[in-house]
């Protein structure tokens, strides 16, 4: 593997006296999609918030492109090239699409570059161009997720951190968002994605990590994780294809309701 762009070494953090992450190590190489999966409460969002400096890092090291990011303030981390697309989008609801996008370029000072980035996002998501003067809160969930990603890309990040991008989205929209992530990677981008929908995340990822109770327990190529029986049982609803979940539910329905 090439030199990693982004590494976590024994990172510990938490809230108050409660430690949530008990020494997490992982790495992301330039140009790959890395997925982090795990149960609710495993510490996935805490990990992202620690990386972004929103939760103080209590131990270990976070490195990006050779520089230490540990204990840097959030704006400095964004300046270094990391951007988070937060869970549930966190858009500026009362602002228009264009204003939201310009907020994404808040740390940039090059007017021309900002304008070019804006046009780039409009090309990427034509729906945003059509509705550039519309307020973000009037958007549907899928459009909001596109806007959230576009806003993050405005600062020309070198690493995009996505927190639950498919949460609450219709299947067809979730597929579109996931496809967009692959497109970003194919264009040379680097993406670290945290997903509850483990199957979808591993399907698009190059590599994956499993976070359990604040520790990385399994890591490897995404395809290997998808076929790992322990991972399947814990996160993918059992062995086999996705239809297994539905078949399993159908079977239970016959047993419990008799119909």
């Amino acid at each position: 593997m090439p030199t990693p762009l982004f590494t976590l070494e024994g990172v510990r953090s938490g809230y108050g006296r409660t430690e949530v992450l008990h020494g997490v190590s992982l790495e992301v190489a330039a140009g790959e999609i890395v997925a982090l999966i795990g149960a609710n409460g495993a510490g996935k969002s805490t990990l992202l918030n620690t990386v972004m400096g929103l939760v103080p890092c209590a131990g270990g090291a976070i490195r990006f492109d050779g520089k230490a990011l540990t204990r840097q303030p959030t704006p400095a981390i964004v300046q270094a090239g990391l951007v988070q697309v937060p869970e549930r989008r966190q858009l500026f609801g009362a602002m228009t699409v264009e204003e939201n996008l310009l907020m994404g370029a808040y740390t940039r000072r090059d007017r021309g570059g900002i304008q070019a980035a804006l046009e780039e996002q409009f090309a990427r998501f034509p729906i945003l161009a059509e509705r550039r003067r519309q307020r973000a809160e009037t958007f549907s969930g899928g459009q909001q997720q596109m806007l959230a990603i576009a806003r993050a890309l405005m600062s020309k990040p070198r690493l995009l951190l996505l927190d639950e991008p498919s949460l609450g989205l219709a299947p067809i929209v979730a597929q579109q968002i996931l496809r967009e992530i692959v497109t970003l990677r194919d264009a040379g981008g680097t993406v670290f994605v945290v997903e509850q929908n483990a199957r979808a995340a591993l399907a698009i990822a190059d590599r994956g990590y499993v976070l359990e109770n604040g520790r990385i327990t399994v890591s490897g190529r995404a395809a290997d994780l998808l076929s790992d029986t322990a991972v399947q049982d814990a996160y993918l609803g059992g062995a086999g294809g996705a239809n297994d979940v539905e078949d399993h539910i159908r079977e239970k329905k016959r047993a419990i309701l008799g119909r």
Partner: protein
Amino acid sequence: MRRLGPSKSLVMAALFVIVAIAFPLVYPDSYHRGVGITAGAMAITAVGVVLLLGFAQQLAIGQPAFSMIGGYANAILCARYGWDPLAALVLAAVVSMVLAYAIGAPILKLRGFFLAMATLALQLMLIVVATEATAITGGPLGVVGVPKFGLFGITLQSDLAFFYLIWALVLASVWISLNIEHSRIGRALRAIAASEIAAGSVGVDIARYKIQMFVIGSGMASVSGSLLVHYLRATDPTVFGFDYGLNLLTGVIVGGLTSIWGGGALGPAIIVGLRELLRDLSLPLWEGVIMGALTVIVLIAFPRGIAGAASDLYDRLFTRRAAVPASAGTPDRAALPRWTEPAAASGGAPMLSVEAVSKSFGSLRAVHDVSFAVQPGSITALIGPNGAGKTTLFNLVCGSLPLDSGAIRFGGQDIANLLPTQIAELGVGRTFQNLQLFDNMSVLENVMCGGHRLASSGILPISVAWPSVAREEAATRAAARQALAFVGLSGFEEANPGALPFGHQRLVEIARALALKPTLLLMDEPASGLNDTETTQLSELILHIAALGVTVLLVEHDMRLVMGLADHIVVMDHGEKMAEGPSAQVRADPKVIAAYLGQEADADAAVHA
């Protein structure tokens, strides 16, 4: 959690009685007794403030207005017309409570700063009246020559007797308020503070309890004002001015906004005592500065006031926190007795029927002419693209939004224009996509809130701890434990819901909705944020709920859950119904595939295609 020491309330009560009895004996001079009487009068008002401001978090801060009514009524009636002080006190309290009831309904609809301004405006109006209506109130000079307080014709000549009377009344106010705090009404108030929408969803009549607390608090403030005026032997417009209100609020906040003992009894005593101490230093300039600085320091160091800090310390010394049981895999599910009638009893009529319902927001037609029926005992799913109007329709059924046109019938009854509370009262439970748990209560209390509609103890029996109240409370608690056991959360009763993993929090919400013994359960994206294994477990729970005879209507994006569970699926797109039918039919519908499902239901196939 396991307690090693005696209960906090017992410790507080014992401390209170000892200090209240000892204080005038340790400081027998009239100055110290006067300070004690002033503090006690303020404490009676403060207890009422905790009920409304602390528990229900309603920023009604003009309580001194009612102290003024009590004060002036006693001054005028006793000094000029020779009324018996007790009779004047009772009359003033009744007048204050009636006035609070009359103005409570309109002004308690206001929130936050607006409510604060409205209650302050009331106080300001009364100050202006007291200053200008010279003929009645004596104007800026006020009323003098108020007699000492007396009971049944016997005047309390000694300040000592008056001191004990006042602090006995503080204790009585505390007792009433503690009874309220630990009742279904106390839970309802905290529920309102944590999430009004969720409080409504379990049938808590929000306006009713706010008004009740406003009325009780006004009564307490009025009694306090009456008593203070008999001690001062005079009153004027400045006695219950904005200064008084500010001191009162500072006392409540420093003592502990959410603690009857702290904010009610302790805080005012500290503030009044501190002011007197500083006055002794005779540094008028520094008095205000020091008071302000101390208040800010206490608030930063102890955000829950002195009572909160003391309570935490007590827990650290005397309470061992039992480890929350780590539960993984399939939870053990206990049986729940059935409360619904068999579906056949309805004679084939739908449980819920949505008839030509429309709703627009401005020019946006969110829901347009949608009709469908939910059969009793069935699991029905509502699906469609983001922005198709599912959530709007869901909110119309719950009563969170008014309809533009059409009808919604539940068991034959038109529920279209009912409030969420009233719909919950009829037996419609709901869960929320973005969890709406009451984070200021334990898991068990959250679920007990669900049993609110099944209990009936009112404010009067609760205030005086009538024996039937305890029996009903025990039944509510037992039912809540059963509901928790049913969702597999036995052992989590005392946990703080916010400390539980997300998946467990969702189960708490389901248990809360089940505690109201619904015949129809509405679930808004129950699988959102769950992984496949958790989704499978949730599906099983929904099946067990359906097996109890509860009809389920859910909005969900996880197609495996929808296709596996639902007996009937309704598909929406652009605010209109696009298709409906059993899963096999809906999934094969080309329109549904194009608008919603996509070519492949499985994301990896779509991406790798």
